């Protein structure tokens, strides 16, 4: 099949299976020692598939009214059901056309690092130090595929949906015309993401402390958690610092705090329920919407009223 037709077929099939943005990176955009060549040495093209996270899934946490929908629909269902379907169907089609295809999804519970974590899953469900399990750099690969640009807090920002996307890839030996790399133009380093984090997990340089993030993703900030009882963290000397989001955690203290967060059930596949509601991403989105730089428009702005917040006094 002609490569132009094949590319059109990839895009059509990906979109039919819920992908919103499809980008193509030629192998030349990757360093020779890139993991993509360890995985599939014959890789000629990396296909990036981005899926929007519906803005409405953030609404419940924004309003403080419903929390479970974000984690189940915007994280678990997308990662475990929607995105694999597109990955497999496009991969099957490429192989039907005589090429080799290797789908790449995030392996949420496996990491090469010895002492890190993934805030989206239970810390004790993570298998660390698994260097033999090759994993690609998702953000870097997304940028090389032309899906979007890197935002200050190390997330992908797309022209259409800002940070409200999730993404995955297919490595293939098919040669497909490349997508242009996006010239960064969305992130103005405003710092709204940093201010939005209820646990101060984002550093001055935009780096995210995964343990700090995990603690507050799971709801350690009582001023932003409607499920936290007044006596929460009673055994901790610095309980008010934890509850106000001012505590600086270490991996050990983070585990101790996470062990005491029992106020809300986890989802399936080891996913923890997000209580912060990805407020970093929401703050970023609100800023981009105010600047009117996103191509996907809504009839109403996302933020309709000032953010709600409890007082730390309630926990004294």
């Amino acid at each position, binding site marked *: 099949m002609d490569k132009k037709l094949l590319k059109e077929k990839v895009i059509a099939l990906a979109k039919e299976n819920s992908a919103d943005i499809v980008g193509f990176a030629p192998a030349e955009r990757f360093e020779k020692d890139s*993991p993509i060549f*360890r*995985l*599939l*040495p014959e890789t000629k093209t990396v296909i990036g598939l981005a899926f929007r996270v519906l803005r409405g899934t953030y609404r419940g946490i924004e309003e403080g009214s419903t929390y479970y929908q974000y984690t189940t629909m915007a994280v678990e269902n997308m990662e*475990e*059901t929607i995105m*694999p*379907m597109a*990955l*497999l*169907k496009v*991969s*099957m089609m*490429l*192989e*039907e056309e005589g090429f*080799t*295809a*290797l*789908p*790449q*999804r995030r*392996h949420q*519970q*496996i990491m090469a690092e010895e002492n890190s974590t993934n805030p989206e899953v239970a810390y004790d*469900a993570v*298998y660390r130090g*698994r260097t*033999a*399990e*090759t*994993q690609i750099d998702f953000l870097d690969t997304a940028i090389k595929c032309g899906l979007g640009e890197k935002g200050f807090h190390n997330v992908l920002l797309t022209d259409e949906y800002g940070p409200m996307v999730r993404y995955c890839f297919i*490595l*293939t030996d098919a040669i497909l015309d490349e997508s242009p790399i996006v010239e960064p133009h969305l992130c103005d380093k405003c710092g709204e993401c940093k201010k939005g984090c209820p646990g101060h997990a984002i550093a001055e340089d935009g780096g995210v402390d995964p343990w700090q993030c995990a603690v507050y993703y799971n709801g350690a900030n009582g001023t932003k958690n409607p499920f936290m009882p007044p006596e929460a963290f009673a055994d901790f000397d610095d309980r008010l610092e934890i509850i106000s989001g001012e505590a600086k955690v270490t991996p050990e203290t983070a585990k101790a705090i996470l062990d005491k967060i029992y106020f809300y059930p986890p989802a*399936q*596949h*080891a996913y923890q329920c997000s209580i912060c509601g990805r407020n970093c991403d929401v703050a970023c989105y609100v800023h981009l919407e105010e600047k009117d730089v996103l191509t996907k428009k809504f009839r109403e702005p996302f933020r309709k009223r000032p953010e709600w917040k409890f007082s730390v006094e309630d926990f004294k």
Partner: protein
Amino acid sequence: MLTSDLIKQKAKQLGASVCGIGRVYEEENPQRDPRMILPNAKAIIGFGFAVPKGIYKAMENGSQYYTYTTLGVKYEDEEMMEIFLLKMGGMIENEGYDACLQKSIPNLRIKGDKATNPEVKDTYELIHAEAVAPGKPVPDVIIDFGKAAKACGLGEMGLNGKIVNKKYGPFMRYCFIITDAPLDCDEPLTETVCDKCGKCMEACPGHAVTENGLDTWQCSVYYKGAHKSNPFMTEEFLKNHPNREQIINGEFRFDADSAREIYKEMKFLPDTQWGYSACICGKKCDIACYRHLIGEL
């Protein structure tokens, strides 16, 4: 009007790589008999979903294992084929016929089946089950996927216990629908696909494939990574076990009890939802089989 062509067309559209329609076949074991599931069954429709060979290549070159388990096993069986079956079944029932969906049941064994399924962390034999009436088989009735695939003309059971398809070899997973719809049927597979070459036997690091077929308990231990070729294995694995060397060299013979004892020590990669274990042997048997079928071995 529901026709075989329409079913095959729809199956392709919904993502199946192959589809065949077989006549309901004679089955000696009532616990495997599709007619015990739908007494007036006329046809069994088989669907195969290819597992991308790129996934096997990543295991073969030792770079990535978990994608096979999450996408090639768990997702295909538990999400992709379930959604597919519901859509196909809906189409058949819209025409007034019954559609009895048959997905794989990974963790159950019928009463009397002492084997296991290496793909999951353990299996449960339905030892307490009783027939609900005279003439009925003991539940659950679980059809033999190998026989069903053959009846549908899709493939046959290979030496290593995997169904082998002429085009995709063992890189395919299956599901079925038993129906009373009067469909035109394909001929059952008569030609041989598995020529018993023994390449799968040679490739298995745990010597689980013999001339008599697959020793499922032996397979289950090495599937989960007991062989020294496991890149996640450290010196701590079975450090004080008296048979450590034999085990990691693939020379120890396991039965149900000894296999279950070793399972506890094998935490190399996480299990997935529904209890699918990470495949760490890299499916060397299937890869050898495929390479033989395409003339490389």
